[in-house]
């Protein structure tokens, strides 16, 4: 139920088409796209091939493990888990998609508007969205259900309204930076109207960020939808839903722990697929700086050299001090250390430190 780990990612550079193509060459991107596509196709075509009816009971085989007839086992009424999971996918995916569409339907125009109309407009819109973000979203969703009943699609649309504030916050920064680019100014000088500038020039530059966020948000929507169904505010039985199936399985955790696995794994994999797709499009997390730990590499040993100053106790030649990966801080220090200098060295504050 972790709401809003939305981040802009490293959405700089490259058109959205190139980004998507690049994402589909990474294993994580391939996994995400394939799994989601598979789920969509499976749930659309499911009436044609599902091995069992959703509410077909086989009480003799209740709480059975995976078998040839029931690929993922059966629940407490002997209903086929695989069929129910696939049949429940449609509503889960549509519900979450509604959240995403509503959130962007509100968030994108707001961000474009605030970026275009300067500080005054931005301040007003930002204050309102901040308040929206500071509200306990889950409690408000439950309050909505308390008033209108568990009408999942409407509830998911309300969630979209609340999340549009987070979408706005991330997109505003992007829209503002895009508007500063020269080609946007050029388009305006050329007499393009406000709508045309936004649609043709600002929006396309924001598409990568939008794609990343939409994928992340899709996963969040799925988790919240399942959470609501888990506490009994999902579609009414006998219509199956993932959250409700996990709730039913939790009752049988002592006598049939396997029942927890299929539904939970499918839900987790679907959310993961959306997140992996988002990561792949955004180009992944920033790389960490070189290690802070001291390097274990030793300097090359070149054997004893001839001392230049015969009175020296120790002689330093071409000393270089540098931080790992950084520029050299000190270079080319050469000095013979004679006995009378040594006491000065050991008394200096630098002595004794690493």
């Amino acid at each position, binding site marked *: *139920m972790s709401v809003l780990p939305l981040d802009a990612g490293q959405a700089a550079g490259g058109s959205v088409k190139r980004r998507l193509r690049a994402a589909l060459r990474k294993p994580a991107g391939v996994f995400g796209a394939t799994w989601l596509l598979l789920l969509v196709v499976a749930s659309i075509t499911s009436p044609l091939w599902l091995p069992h009816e959703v509410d077909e009971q086989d009480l003799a085989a209740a709480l059975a493990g995976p078998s040839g007839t029931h690929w993922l086992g059966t629940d407490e009424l002997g209903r086929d888990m695989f069929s129910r999971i696939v049949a429940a996918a449609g509503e889960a995916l549509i519900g979450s998609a509604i959240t995403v569409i509503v959130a962007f339907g509100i968030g994108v125009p707001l961000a474009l508007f605030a970026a275009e109309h300067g500080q005054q407009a931005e301040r007003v819109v930002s204050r309102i969205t*901040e*308040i929206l973000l500071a509200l*306990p979203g889950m409690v408000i969703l439950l309050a909505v259900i308390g008033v209108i009943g568990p009408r999942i699609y409407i509830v998911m649309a309300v969630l979209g309204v609340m999340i549009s504030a987070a979408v706005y916050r991330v997109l505003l920064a992007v829209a503002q930076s895009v508007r500063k680019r020269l080609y946007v100014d050029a388009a305006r000088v050329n007499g393009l109207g406000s709508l045309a500038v936004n649609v043709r020039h600002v929006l396309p530059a924001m598409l990568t960020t939008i794609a990343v966020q939409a994928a992340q948000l899709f996963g969040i929507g799925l988790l919240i939808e399942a959470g609501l169904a888990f506490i009994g505010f999902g579609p009414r039985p006998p219509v199956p839903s993932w959250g409700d199936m996990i709730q039913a399985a939790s009752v049988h*955790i002592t006598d049939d722990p396997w029942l927890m696995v299929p539904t939970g794994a499918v839900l987790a994999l679907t959310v993961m697929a959306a997140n992996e797709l988002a990561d792949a499009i955004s180009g992944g997390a920033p790389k960490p700086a070189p290690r802070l730990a001291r390097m274990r590499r030793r300097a090359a040993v070149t054997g004893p050299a001839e001392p230049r100053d015969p009175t020296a106790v120790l002689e330093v030649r071409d000393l270089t001090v540098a931080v790992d990966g950084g520029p050299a801080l000190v270079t080319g220090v050469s000095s013979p250390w004679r006995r009378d200098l040594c006491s000065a060295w050991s008394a200096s504050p630098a002595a004794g430190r690493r």
Partner: protein
Amino acid sequence: MVGYVARRLAFAIGTVAAASVLSFLLVHLTSGSPGAIVAGQGATPEQIDAANEELGWNRPLVTQFADWVSHVTRGDFGTSLSDGHDIKADLFARLPVTASIALLATLLSAIVGIVIGVTAAVRGGRLDRAVTAGSSIAVSLPAFWVGVLLVYALSIRTTLLPATGYVPFAENPVEWLKSLALPAIALAVGGAAIVARTARTGMVEALRQEHIRTLQAIGTPPWRLRYVHALRFASAPVVSVLGVQFIALFGGSIIVENLFALPGLGQATQLAVGVHDLPAVQGVVVIATVVVVITNLLLDLLVAALDPKVRTA
């Protein structure tokens, strides 16, 4: 600093006011009425109307709102429509359970997430890739599912922690912690992953700073460098993500409480929502908002104390 505190305070009050208006309108702008719930099923329209009249539902909206606000500010949320108990007493008895779970889960997410995130950023390499991959798996796991698996592993296979039941803090602090450990851990799995990501990104940025390089060059011990200097630089995004996490985990707690049969706000909300007990629902919205807003206010002040840039912004 004074100006900053005043602004945050005004914002907090504004948020609570917005939540109050929202929860009031939500209840009043719909077709249903409390009279229908009080009168029960099979009541005649006249009976429903009489019940509404008695509840003051037929008065003008503005009058009702003023009346409701004046009661709520005095801490009076009215009585439940379903069984007539005092909503305030009920919710205040339940609030500590939910708030404790959310607080414990946030604390756990913060500690685990910061240590993991900082270590990943400092070490880099294979460990960093493992943390990144692990955190993207962890954020995808539904907390209520993790909760059931924890019950299986820690309460059924072994008897390390109790699966259900609540022991008040005042009665026995150790048992209290034990009774809340499972839900807190279940919620912290996803929370820690998000904190770890933020901490890692912040630390990667922090370790590139010039002052960190200077501190390193003069021989500051590594732990001090990481956990005092670099982490302070990275603290603003981490603390603000903790604020968002507290809101999310408060909501998450309402979901997972059900699983552990804990007498918290979740149970009350679930009951109230199920029977359309609207005054109770309103009470939950207002109380939850106040708790969440106060926590975020405190976190904002913490950020301001840590980061002088925030104070002047």
